[in-house]
Every structure is written in structure tokens, then in C-alpha cells.
């Protein structure tokens, strides 16, 4: 290869290398901040700020959704399999929100350790199948986001 071209090739490789290194350092420094939400275990362990707007995310514990009569209030529990976080909200829940499904919540943690959500988003996974196929399979095995979670205790 012509020496001038070789020099320019080395320049391009250096450019890619240093841009990559800069991005990696940037990502490393901000690793906590890039996460969209706190998992319940971190919130329960006191690693999330109280009374400040944060996001929490996890799987809705089956059987935990309770609707308060004559009000918009809904209470439920989200879990990451390590810790459970009690949530209360009075916003409208998205269609895909459900027990055993994943959800991302925006709101504040109050002094009692209850998460008061002002926005509830449903997270869906990357499995797509027709309903009749889902009925024939053990559906729980195919819900990846919340798969393998220990809902016990």
C-alpha cells in the first residue's frame, strides 16, 4: 500500500479507536444514569432518593393488583425477584399492563417506602405469537421479561 494511504488508514483507525474509548469512558462514568429505571431491590435497599422524581421498573406481582372502590386508586406490587416494592397510583393503566407483565413507573418514593406513580408504562418483550399458539404452550415460559422470577415470599 502507498505510504500516504497507509498513513491515512492509520489515522482512520485511530479515530475509531479513540472515539470508541471516549464513548466507553463516558458510558462508564454515567453507567448509573443511563439506566432508565431503578429495580425494586435498589429502592428497597435505600439506594434511590426519597421524595424526588425517579423511575422504577419491574414485574407486577401476580395477585397483587387491588382496585380501591369508588376511586381511581390502584395498588400493586412490582418485584425484580429480590425485593418487592409497593406502588400506588391513580392514573389510567395501559392495556398491556397486567399481572406477571413488566412495567416502568415514574413517580416519587414517599417516606413509608411506597412508590406513588404519576405515570405507568407497560413494557412488552420481543416474543410475538398468535393467541392459539400461546394457549397450546405454557405461556409463562414464553414471557421472557418476567421469566424465571421467583415470585415467592
Amino acid at each position: 500500500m502507498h505510504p500516504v494511504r497507509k498513513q491515512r488508514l492509520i489515522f482512520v483507525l485511530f479515530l475509531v479507536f479513540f472515539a470508541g474509548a471516549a464513548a466507553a469512558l463516558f458510558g462508564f462514568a454515567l453507567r448509573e444514569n443511563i439506566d432508565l429505571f431503578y429495580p425494586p431491590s435498589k429502592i428497597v435497599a435505600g439506594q434511590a432518593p426519597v421524595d424526588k422524581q425517579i423511575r422504577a421498573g419491574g414485574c407486577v406481582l401476580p395477585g397483587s393488583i387491588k382496585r380501591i372502590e369508588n376511586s381511581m386508586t390502584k395498588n400493586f406490587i412490582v418485584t425484580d425477584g429480590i425485593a418487592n416494592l409497593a406502588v400506588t397510583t391513580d392514573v389510567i393503566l395501559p392495556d398491556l399492563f397486567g399481572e406477571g407483565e413488566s412495567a416502568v413507573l415514574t413517580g416519587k418514593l414517599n417516606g413509608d417506602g411506597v412508590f406513588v406513580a404519576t405515570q405507568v408504562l407497560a413494557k412488552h418483550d420481543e416474543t410475538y405469537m398468535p393467541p392459539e399458539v400461546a394457549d397450546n404452550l405454557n405461556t409463562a415460559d414464553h414471557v421472557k421479561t418476567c421469566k424465571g422470577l421467583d415470585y415467592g415470599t
Partner: protein
Amino acid sequence: MGWQWFHRLGSPRWFYEKTGPWVFWLGLAALILLAVGTLWGLGFAPVERLQGNSYRIIYIHLPLAFLSMAGYYIMAISGAIGLIWKMKLADMVMKSAAPIGAVLTFLALFTGAVWGKPTWGTWFEWRDPRIASTMLLFFLYLGVIALQASYQNQQMADRFSAILAIVGTVNIPIMYGSVYWWNSLHQGATIKFTGGTSMHPSMLYPLMVMIAGFYCFYAYALLKSVRAEVLHREYRTQWVKDLVSSNRAV
């Protein structure tokens, strides 16, 4: 001397003459595949167990997202080739790939928002790592377009937009990894490079047709654009003048 073939490849005239017949066939293939895929995906593929009909936007969203990333590689690699070998054709490919990529990325973001509203419950989530890195990709494309328009001297424009495109390549693995490295709202990849998909075959086949159709469309759009750029930059040469006077420039 082993590089002779490579330099011949860089002749804009050779490229223009060779690719003439491809335009029609790529356009035809794109039209057929997209028509079949759209009908199949929107009309005949079964509904999804949880999302119902809303999931069908994947037939447009996923190919667009694929191509927004693949198009960036094409732009950055041709930019690097132009920078290293001073190949005129590579610079033209880089310039042409930028607006096409920007449109594809915008549409990927737009269809993602339309999909997000009925499923997640929100149009847009600025803080989601996947969405943020896709926004960055969109701005990188816009940056290349802006740099191309900022210089009177085409060589300077090509050099600086190539450098921006090359630096921006670090965003592509971040985009891909964003749903795995961090907590995000966006789901993981449906079709993985390591084989295996998490989609039922009755839904996957039309998706494959759509992906093939969008790739053909991308090749068609890029080729058309590069051919126009060839004529634009070579308008002083005799072969372009002959072409124009013989009225065969399409």
C-alpha cells in the same frame, strides 16, 4: 499494483454505465417484495396474543430500524474509503447515503412512537437508551448533511463529513447493546445475529419479506441518488456531455 481493480471500481463513469440496468430491477424487486410483505403482514398474519393488531407496525418499524443502522455503516465505510484512497465514487456514496439514512431513521423513530402509544402507553421516552441512541443517529446523519452543505469546496466537505461519520460509528454498537446493557423500556432484539428468533413463523415470514423489500428499496434509492451525484460532479467531463446530448441520461 495489486490495487488496480479497486481503483477501476472508483471510476464514476464505469459505475454509471454498469449500474444503469440495475436500477429498474432493484426498483421492481422492491415494489413486489414490499407489496407482498405489506399484504401478508397487515392482512394475513395472525393477531398477537397480547398486543392484538398493534404489533403489525413491526413490519415497517423493524426494517426501517435495520436499515437506519446498515445505512450508517455504508455512509461511514464509504467515507473512510474516500478519506484513505481519495476515491471520488466513495465520497459520492457517502454524501448520498446521508439524506436517505436520515429519512429512514426519522421514520423508524416515528413508527416507534406510533407503536409505543398503544403498547407502552407513551409516544416517546427521551430517557430510554435505545430511543436516545437512535436520536443521536438521526443527528449524526443531519450533521453529515449540514457539513456537506457548509463548504464551497467539495473536497473539504467530503473530508470533514467523513471524519464525523467515522467518529459516529461508535454509536452503532451502543444502539444495538442499549437494550441489553441498561434497563430500558424498549424490548430486546426479535431477530438476533446469533440465530434464533422469538417470533412465531406465521408472523416471521412476512417480516423477512418486508426486510428484503426494504433492503432492495434502499439499494434502489442509494443507486439513484449516487447516479445523480455522479452526473452532478462530473458535468464538465466529455462523457457526461455526450450522454446529455444523446438524451440517455435517466
